């Protein structure tokens, strides 16, 4: 059984069709990359996977671990192991990053039947993960994402992923806005999470990320469809040729 199975997914926003029949299957242990021009629907796909409101599923199905993902509330999906690293992480004033992470982790652990971590255990665990991503205590104490730079927000997303240990991680342009060193650090963080039980969907514009995180498959999303799929060499090809060949065929 595939971990994630998207079939003929059609999605509309305000009566405008954005995804026009996506088929995509991820097996456990796989990493797939999705590339594609701006506005082609990549974030839309990620939001639909996470269950954001405002997207009408006009046709198609999504099964996660064999279950109907679309029937689940967003928090239920999260507790089942679906994680989205947001393209634009949200600021939540007054809520310390640590507090937030602890609340989220305990919600997850409860679902998985693991006991809640006490404050010391939690702190130790998060600090260890944060250290790898070169995130200081100071940042963890601050209100969630408030006043963070673009790159800091992205690193914070990866930290959350590392702490929450998802089964399916969708990273929406997590590499955008990172400096060269940070890209390396984040990629190392992601690679550390690669495991036979886990699958990842990387949305990116840059071939460079895929030098660090080598994908099993690369898909091109254009005009709401998977226009082409291939191995990692497809990314190199796109880098050379651009999206020209996909842009002509407007739906």
């Amino acid at each position, binding site marked *: 059984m595939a971990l994630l199975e998207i079939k003929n997914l059609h999605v509309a926003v305000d009566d405008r069709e954005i995804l026009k029949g996506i088929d995509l299957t991820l097996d456990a242990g796989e990493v797939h990359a999705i590339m594609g021009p701006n506005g082609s629907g990549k974030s839309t796909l990620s939001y639909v996977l996470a*269950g954001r409101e405002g997207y009408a599923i006009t046709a198609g199905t999504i099964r996660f671990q064999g279950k109907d993902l679309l029937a689940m509330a967003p*928090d239920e999906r*999260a507790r089942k192991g679906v994680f989205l690293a947001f393209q634009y992480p949200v600021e*939540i004033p*007054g*809520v310390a990053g640590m507090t937030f992470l602890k*609340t*989220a982790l305990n*919600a997850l652990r409860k679902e998985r039947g693991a006991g809640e971590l006490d404050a010391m255990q939690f702190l130790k665990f998060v600090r260890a993960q944060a250290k790898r991503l070169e995130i200081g205590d100071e940042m963890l104490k601050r209100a969630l994402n408030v006043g963070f730079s673009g790159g800091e927000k992205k690193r914070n997303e990866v930290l*959350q992923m590392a702490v929450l240990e998802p089964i399916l991680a969708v990273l929406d342009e997590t590499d955008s806005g990172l400096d060269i060193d940070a890209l390396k650090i984040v990629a190392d963080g992601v690679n550390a999470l690669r495991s036979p039980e886990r699958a990842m969907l990387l949305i990116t514009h840059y071939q460079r990320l895929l030098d660090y995180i080598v994908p099993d498959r690369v898909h091109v999303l254009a005009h709401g469809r998977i226009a082409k799929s291939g191995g990692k060499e497809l990314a190199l090809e796109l880098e050379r040729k651009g999206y020209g060949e996909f842009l002509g065929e407007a739906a």
Partner: protein
Amino acid sequence: MASSIDTRERLQSVTDQAYKYGFVTDIDTDVAPKGLSEDIVRFISARKAEPEWLLAWRLKAYRHWLAMPEPIWSHVKFPALDYQDAYYYSAPKATDGPKSLDEVDPKLLETYEKLGVPLGERALLAGVAVDAVFDSVSVATTFKKKLEEKGVIFCSISEAVQKHPELIKKYMGSVVPYADNKHACLNSAVFTDGSFVYIPKGVRCPMELSTYFRINAAKTGQFERTLIIADAGSYVSYLEGCTAPMRDENQLHAAVVELIALDDAEIKYSTVQNWYPGDVEGRGGIYNFVTKRGACRGRNSKIAWTQVETGSAITWKYPSCILQGDNSVGEFYSVAVTNNRQQADTGTKMIHIGRNTRSRIISKGISAGRADNTYRGLVRILPKAEGARNYTQCDSLLIGDRCGAHTVPYIESRNPSARVEHEATTSKISEDQLFYCRQRGLSQEEAVSLIVNGFCKEVLQTLPMEFAVEAQKLLGVSLEGSVG
């Protein structure tokens, strides 16, 4: 509080005495008839064996009250109060109250569960008639001893009238005059309970007052009168209220709190108010009309009010600071949550009289359901308040499109060297914030609670630790069902 036990004993002894006023009621009951009259005022005073001057003061207040108009300026609506349809002294035990926990509204019990109220306290809070002997009695005695060693006086106001009349005479009514407003005036005429605190010169009160006694305080809500005096160089932190929703048969609560800080003294007064708010349709619920005011009389004195207001059908209160002493500081931190049909009109007054006086106001209003939530405040800088400073931040959060959030600040400055700054914003919990939290596995209600707590953080962090944790839970519980 600790003293309420003593108070009861004292009352008993007083009522056992021959009664010198020819009041018609059967003397060996504790009950005065319904309604308000000069006789009732005399009855209360006599039962408490009060000195002549205090009776005279009560009567002056009562007579003034008769002619006083109801305050009409606040943003709250309710049917006219029937003052004759209430008990002003030891109301008889409600016969229709629940007999056991099985008869208590399961919703209420659920709330206690969520707030982590110990089992033993639940029955009491829910108004079940029990002749409980509180565990806290022994605790109370231990702490009393410790306070006595330091010379701290902490007792009921009735006891203070007997034991420390000079302090009562000097300070009671000196911050909130009996004629201040209709509700305070009524309180002055008929107050029956409340606390008295005196911290002697240079003493730092060794504990947060009233934390351990809150359960005992549960039954003293209606016409409470509190007087706290911090003598030169002293410090006290006083906690009032309880996070668990409390039922009370009395609809009208009109408390008065007076604080006096002398030179270099500091008073921190924290309140968590969670009186019964009425049901979803707004039936029942307490009218909480409170007058709280502190006078920073001395140089370098400081008074800080923190309040978390989640209960009551109507909240009408403006804990204020009169900054008389040079360099004195007033602070007001407030979270007011209204849900369903609740109405809150609350804020503060900062009156800058002395030089270099400073004030800071942080108000967070949260409105949900069909509730109305108003911040009303006054900052007044008088001509002699050289170098005075005020900073005010009022933020409102709306949850749903059928509630209201209002900000009505009055800002008056008559000194060019003073600086007054006021900011107010209105916002809602964004869909993006909610979704972000839910993507991380938080339920809708956890997400709302988390975001709201973040919104209120600046205020909550001024609460004493133990209270803060309870208050956080309370915010979540108060807003349950408001989203989605």
